């Protein structure tokens, strides 16, 4: 289990190895990697800057990770989120979930991404190739994505 906020890139294989090593109770490892796309709304992007709320970010990610571990029988999990200036095709976020069976690993990874997207205090600013820039609007679909996990009440803010 772990949470990291960093400007450096990450390596998926190295993170899997670090997490599961030679453990023999793990049968399934799911990773999600989010990357910077080259355009937004049809306009080419030159860079993307990720701002966050130091302290609260780590606390929210740890809370979300603990919630996933309470809901699914995970052997291990990891969340890495990058901050600072990124460029198209750069990695933004990595989520890894490991479990004895695949459905738990898949569901927990999706849950972590859905919660992270709507709860973790990160903000993206897109810089376009024409020199303009704007803060990315939150997507309604990300809030909607949360609702399918609301079988049991959570403390999440609306």
């Amino acid at each position, binding site marked *: 289990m772990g949470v990291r906020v960093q400007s450096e890139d990450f390596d998926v294989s190295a993170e899997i190895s670090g997490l599961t090593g030679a453990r023999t109770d793990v049968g399934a490892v799911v990773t999600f990697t989010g990357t910077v796309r080259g355009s937004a709304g049809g306009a080419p992007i030159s860079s993307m800057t990720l*701002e966050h*709320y130091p302290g609260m970010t780590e*606390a*929210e990610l740890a809370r979300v990770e603990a919630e996933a571990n309470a809901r699914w029988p995970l052997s291990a999990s990891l969340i890495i989120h990058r901050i600072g200036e990124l460029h198209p095709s750069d990695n933004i976020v990595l989520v890894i979930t490991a479990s004895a069976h695949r459905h738990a690993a898949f569901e927990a990874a999706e849950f972590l991404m859905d919660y992270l997207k709507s709860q973790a205090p990160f*903000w993206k*600013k897109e810089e376009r190739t024409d020199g303009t820039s704007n803060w*990315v609007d939150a997507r309604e679909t990300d809030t909607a994505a949360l609702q399918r996990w609301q079988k049991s009440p959570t403390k999440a803010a609306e």
Partner: protein
Amino acid sequence: MTSGQNTNTITLRYFAWVREKVGLAEEEVCLPADVATVAQLMNWLKARGETYEAAFAKPEIIRAALDQTHARADAPIGSAREIAFFPPVTGG
């Protein structure tokens, strides 16, 4: 920072376009006694000048955190020492 007790001094933090519009990342303010909720605090801030008025023009789209925990607009400020305002998050 201060060793006084029962002070109404709290830290305000602003992020993303709220920070840009206010023109500050962080400040200490002395909270009036009649400001009891997050929504009341936003209203009070809005009256502090043009930059605040621009930042808090639509308080319903601004999110808040009390001591680094998400809080609704009707949440009581209580004994929170750090209150943050920011747009809906867009990480991931």
